[in-house]
């Protein structure tokens, strides 16, 4: 760059106009590169290249800041006039994501070329992300030199977000997600990656027991002619069989006998606990003086359901029970020789050797008799940095709560 141009840049008044132009150019360049690349799906290089790239980025950021701290462009990069257009540019991309369904096959050539159905993995998204990180980095550095405790909230919010953006972007390619199909009393050491290819895992898992805890079944009324559930406006079409008497669609039900797990013997049902057993109930139904009594059975993958015909128009039906909770008792062995027995369930994963093991699914057709438990194993080595950023942001949010807008003299109502 000649001395004259650099002097021009220095003298130039950097404002919103420049912010808008730079953001606009980044978006244009991004979409241009995306179109030129033939709509490829971008991936950031994995370990160790992402780590090296991250460290170089941090070094350049800190170096550039301290080398040209008083340069108008650096000052501008650390201010609202660059930040606002950048935030709006990013918002524009997220708005596109809000309206265009993501992770599906693109419907038109234009959508495919611009990568609109997988925006997170496109050039414009990555470039605007990078630009935002530069702005956040410079802003943070500007605010902490010299450091003043008054800026603690500012630092937590901006640096926290910076860390979250940086670590999620760089770490995205190091995330491993696989599913493992475990059958009861069998040992499994292979899993399937997202494209369905088997991969050998560093842990072996034996499913000791799969267990489902169910809600009581629901009952409903169906139309005999159509077989459809009878719907009345603002009335619950289903009632949970968790009590002895209930009213549904004008019918009064009295439960004479309820069996949680049962099978048919002759004309009635008896308590049974073998694969395929399901809930049943003997009910007495009255409406307008007429009375009918009989069994309803929810049925299973082995047994037919049983409905109770109430009159010409309606029948009473028991629906399959919904799961309240499902869990797997696992024996896990690691390569380092660790041997653990534990139980996992939805919302309660188990963490071992950098892997988290989640309860994902089961054979839903077999329901509580399923001998299959589908597990998901996830490894995300960058997670601690992401969490650190999240916790900084949480602390920053508390600061926002306490201090309010500094230009108003802060929030005056909080002690």
């Amino acid at each position, binding site marked *: 760059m000649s001395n004259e141009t650099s002097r021009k840049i220095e003298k130039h008044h950097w404002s919103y106009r420049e912010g808008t132009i730079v953001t606009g150019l980044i978006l244009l360049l991004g979409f241009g590169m995306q179109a030129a690349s033939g709509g490829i799906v971008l991936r950031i290089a994995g370990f160790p290249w992402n780590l090296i790239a991250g460290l170089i980025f941090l070094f350049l950021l800190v170096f550039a800041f301290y080398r040209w701290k008083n340069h108008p462009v650096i000052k501008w990069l650390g*201010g*609202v*006039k660059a*930040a*606002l257009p950048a*935030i709006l540019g*990013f*918002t524009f991309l*997220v*708005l596109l*994501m*809000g*309206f*265009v*369904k*993501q992770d599906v096959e693109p419907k038109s050539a234009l959508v495919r070329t611009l990568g609109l159905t997988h925006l*997170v993995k496109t050039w414009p998204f990555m470039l605007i992300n990078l630009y935002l990180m530069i702005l956040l980095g410079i802003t943070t550095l500007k605010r902490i030199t010299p450091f003043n405790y008054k800026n603690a909230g500012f630092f937590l919010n901006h640096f926290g977000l910076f860390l979250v953006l940086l670590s*999620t972007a760089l770490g995205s390619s190091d*995330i491993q*997600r696989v599913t493992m199909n475990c059958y009861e009393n069998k040992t499994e050491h292979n899993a399937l990656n997202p494209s369905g290819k088997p991969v050998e895992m560093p842990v072996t898992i034996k499913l000791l027991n799969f267990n489902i805890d169910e*809600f009581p079944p*629901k009952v409903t009324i169906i139309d005999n002619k159509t077989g459809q559930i009878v719907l009345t406006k*603002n009335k*619950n*079409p*289903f009632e*949970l069989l*968790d009590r002895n008497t209930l009213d549904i669609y004008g019918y009064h039900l009295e439960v004479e006998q309820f069996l949680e797990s049962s099978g048919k013997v002759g004309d009635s049902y008896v308590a049974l606990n073998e694969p395929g057993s399901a809930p049943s109930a003997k009910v007495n139904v009255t409406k307008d003086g007429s009375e009918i009594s009989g069994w309803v059975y929810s049925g299973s993958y082995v047994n037919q359901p049983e409905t109770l015909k109430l009159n010409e128009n309606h029948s009473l039906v028991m629906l399959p029970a*919904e*799961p*309240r*909770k*499902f869990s797997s008792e696992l024996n896990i062995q690691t390569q380092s020789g660790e041997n653990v027995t534990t139980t996992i369930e*939805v*919302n*309660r*994963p188990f963490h071992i050797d950098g892997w*988290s093991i*989640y309860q994902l699914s089961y054979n839903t057709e077999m329901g509580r008799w399923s001998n299959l438990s589908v597990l998901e194993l*996830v490894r*995300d080595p960058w*997670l601690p940095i*992401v*969490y650190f950023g*999240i916790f900084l*942001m*949480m602390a*920053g*949010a*508390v600061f*926002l*709560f306490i201090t*309010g*807008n*500094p*230009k*108003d003299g802060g*929030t*005056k*109502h909080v002690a």
Partner: protein
Amino acid sequence: MNQLAAGLSFAGTAFLLVFMTILWLHIQRPPMRTLGETRLWYAIFMSGIGLGSYLRWKYKWLVSYSLGLAMVFLIINLQHPETYDKTLMPALQSPWFIPHVIVYIFAYAMLGASSLVALRNIFFAPSDKTIKGPIQMADNLVYLGFSFLTLGLLFGALWAKEAWGHYWTWDPKETWAFLTWMFYLVYIHYRFRHPSEHKRAMTILAVSFAILLVCWFGVNYLPSAQNSVHIYSE
């Protein structure tokens, strides 16, 4: 007269709280699963915020506005009574469920109150000078609301990691929640840099609330959002 009005508003809010408690006990799960249930929480918080800001700042008009808005939500609920299903899918059975929803709805109520301030200023304040006091109140409400919004968003991320193995999946609800967050972020930055340009700030605030409403209700109807894990059951 003022005392009578305040007393009645207080009684109404307390009544809603009692109703919510009975509902919670009756359906044997936190009443936070359906849109109607979130509207009920919103009505409670909205009235509470209106009353609280009256007690603190003596803005009478905000009480009537916020009670009016709370009433709109209650009327919607009366027009579309929901059936209170007692089952709760396993993914929602988490210690994060209650804090995530409560913090979010509280943030929505705070930001809703701030948008009432914005709308009043856009339509009834003739120039930038007259709205100095109210804009500070809008700021207070936005800062409080935004800090809760941030916490709700981050709680959601931590919960998602425990439940689904990833903290952020750009699920449509997440996308719109993030958009909402970004719009209020624009407001905060704009106010910070241009403390005296009130009208434009108020416009940003009104637009932000529109985005918030899309996130809360609109997502259920967006074609891009089918199969979202966040769709409320009706």
